[in-house]
């Protein structure tokens, strides 16, 4: 027999040759050294392959290892559920509800922005179909997201029914609209004194003058608006100039260039305005929320003041707390502040000694970013504290949910999908949260989503830091080693973040990568767990 080929040798070793052929090979091997060597090498390779494949050099994920205990009470799940419920309640009562209450005080009184701004106002009267369509689109977007997240569970018709049922119920709960009068100016519009509009009034004109009374809301789209009459509902104005000399029983929401308030507002004022002035005769019985260029408040405000403005001059009576952020702040001699006074300003505040302040004002000077001094030890101390804070956050994360921590850090290895998801969620989630605010689901859920998003943004640096530490020092086992690696990683990230200009972009990339890794880890945890399904 001639030398046999490698194929024959392999089939011989694997006992796949017929008896006669195998006998022939056996006989040849007895006399041929080369073929015997080949046979031996292939046999050893087979053993080597088996041993290499059988070597256990990788851990099995925890959710594939843990089997439910026979007959045991699922205390772990019960505890987790209890803690989760407690955490959710704490978050709601401690964070979300105060924000929601604050929003309500500022005029966001009707549960969700969509209802408040549009559907209960005259602006949307007669537009029921459009309202339904908009709400449906917003809810459908959410529904699609929910269905996408639950898609693997959708084999269970109950889950699908619950989602669809919730959407239907949400739609069914949408508030009803009312009719309104719509007036177009030619080019101006005037509601004469003594005239009364018994519903809401929508005005579109070059100049609108309201000397009469409106029983409902007043909505204006005009260059100039003057309100001398009595508005029993809200005033919502999109205009260049707004003068309110009369009385408004409800809220004033102004998106104007110049806002002059001389009259009385029964509830709250919220305005985004270039210049704002309140006369000393003016009264606002609720709160005032301002985003203004220049602002002068000489009138009486019963509730809180929250103001973000370029310059702010206070010379009136403020019944409750004042919280201000301004380029320049001046408090005049006639000013009275009955509550706390907190301000962040860029220049030292000018406070008259004759101003009557119930408590000493807390005023802090905010520096420009460009003012930070790289030569100041205080700056580096501040950075050290920030590093320590992120380390403690990571420590808590590691101790509370080690599996998730390691999964998220490990997911950083999948750089491309992590970046993709990170960028997507970085921008999409706030948009979704805002959409949520505009649906019947309400502001609370929207704020909750934004808070979770903010927590995830902060956690992103921890995740990337842990991954970076692992890359530098090699994989580790145990909490101590993981903490050391995370500390090193966070230190490096913070040091790189200090580099002018480049640091910003590095931080941005870190946030994208970390956020994406968190999303991937969450996705992994949301996959159907058969063990859990089995015990349900």
């Amino acid at each position, binding site marked *: 027999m001639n030398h046999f080929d490698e194929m024959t040798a392999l089939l011989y070793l694997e006992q*796949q040759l017929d008896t006669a052929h195998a006998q022939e090979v056996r006989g040849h091997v007895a006399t*041929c050294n080369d073929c015997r060597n080949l046979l031996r090498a292939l046999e050893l390779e087979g053993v080597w*392959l088996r041993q290499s494949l059988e070597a256990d050099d990788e851990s*099995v994920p925890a959710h594939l290892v843990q*089997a*439910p205990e026979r007959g045991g009470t699922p205390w772990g799940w019960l505890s987790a559920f209890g803690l989760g419920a407690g955490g959710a309640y704490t978050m709601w009562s401690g964070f979300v509800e105060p924000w929601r209450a604050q929003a309500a005080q500022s005029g966001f009184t009707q549960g969700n922005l969509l209802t408040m701004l549009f559907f209960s106002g005259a602006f949307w009267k007669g537009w029921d179909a459009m309202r339904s369509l908009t709400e449906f689109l917003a809810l459908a977007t959410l529904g699609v997201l929910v269905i996408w997240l639950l898609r693997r569970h959708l084999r269970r018709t109950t889950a699908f029914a619950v989602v669809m049922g919730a959407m239907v119920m949400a739609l069914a709960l949408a508030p009803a609209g009312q009719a309104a009068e719509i007036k177009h100016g030619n080019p101006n519009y005037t509601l004469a004194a003594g005239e009364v509009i018994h519903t809401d009034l929508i005005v579109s004109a070059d100049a609108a003058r309201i000397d009469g009374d409106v029983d409902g809301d007043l909505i204006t789209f005009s260059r100039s608006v003057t309100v001398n009459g009595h508005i029993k509902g809200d005033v919502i104005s999109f205009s260049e100039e707004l003068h309110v000399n009369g009385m408004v029983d409800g809220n004033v929401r102004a998106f104007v260039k110049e806002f002059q308030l001389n009259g009385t507002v029964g509830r709250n004022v919220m305005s985004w305005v270039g210049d704002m002035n309140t006369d000393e005769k003016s009264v606002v019985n609720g709160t005032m929320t301002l985003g203004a260029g220049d602002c002068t408040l000489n009138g009486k405000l019963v509730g809180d003041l929250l103001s973000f403005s370029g310059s702010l001059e206070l010379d009136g009576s403020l019944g409750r707390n004042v919280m201000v952020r301004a380029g320049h702040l001046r408090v005049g001699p006639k000013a009275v502040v009955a509550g706390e006074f907190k301000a962040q300003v860029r220049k030292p505040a000018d406070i008259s000694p004759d101003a009557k302040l119930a408590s000493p004002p807390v005023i802090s000077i905010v520096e420009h970013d460009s003012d930070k001094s790289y030569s100041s030890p205080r700056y580096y101390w501040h950075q050290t504290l920030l590093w320590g804070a992120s380390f403690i956050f990571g420590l808590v994360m590691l101790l509370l949910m080690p599996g998730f921590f390691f999964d998220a850090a490990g997911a950083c290895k999948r750089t491309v999908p992590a970046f993709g998801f990170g960028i997507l969620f970085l921008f999409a989630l706030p948009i979704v949260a805002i959409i949520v605010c505009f649906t019947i689901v309400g502001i609370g859920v929207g704020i909750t989503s934004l808070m979770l998003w903010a927590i995830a943004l902060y956690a992103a640096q921890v995740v990337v830091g842990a991954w970076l530490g692992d890359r530098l020092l090699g994989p580790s086992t145990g909490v101590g080693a993981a903490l050391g690696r995370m500390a090193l990683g966070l230190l490096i990230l913070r040091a790189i973040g200090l580099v002018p200009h480049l640091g910003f972009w590095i931080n941005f990339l870190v946030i994208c990568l970390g956020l994406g890794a968190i999303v991937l880890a969450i996705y992994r945890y949301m996959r159907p767990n*058969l063990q859990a399904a089995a*015990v349900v």
Partner: protein
Amino acid sequence: MERRKTTGDMSAAELADVLAQVRAGDAEAWGELYGQYAPAIFRFCRRALPTREDAEDATTEIFMKVRQKLGTYDSSRPFTAWLYKVASNHCWDLLRRRRIRQDLETGDLETLPLEHPDPDQLEQLQTEHDSKHVRAGLAKMPDRARMALVLRYYSDMSYDEIADTLGVRRAFVGVLLLRARHQLREILAEGGGGMRTAAAGGKP
């Protein structure tokens, strides 16, 4: 040949008892069965599929199938053989669905010349590369070749079972395995090993 890997040491009688309870809808028994076999199936999937995430997903999905198909399991045959059959079919279906598999692979395998290895270099390759290298090399291999090696040298499947799983003729399985070995050698050699195949006809 029955060397399929499992965790734990459930006896045949215990396994039969657990399977009977699972068939009767006992959730705890299902949990026990899952805990017993899921790690082993994960390890199999980890070797058969390119990424860890794929293996985790596949393990979960395989056990979904197992639960659905348990009624069709013939208890006169070994359970692990049936389980690995379900797992390998699922993994191969997964790869096929993703179109990762090279359609030209079959043709290449049938037409490419088989080059004889130098036994000395082959042994040198084995001493230079540990299991981690082999596993890393495995991940770089074409899916069919990787599946063939895993089914044969990890799951101990017969040529008939491999042919059935991969949808090829039985006579082709040997070619498949030999070519897979060659590909692995090449990958390891390119990664720094000393193995180089000798020119055709240069050795016995």
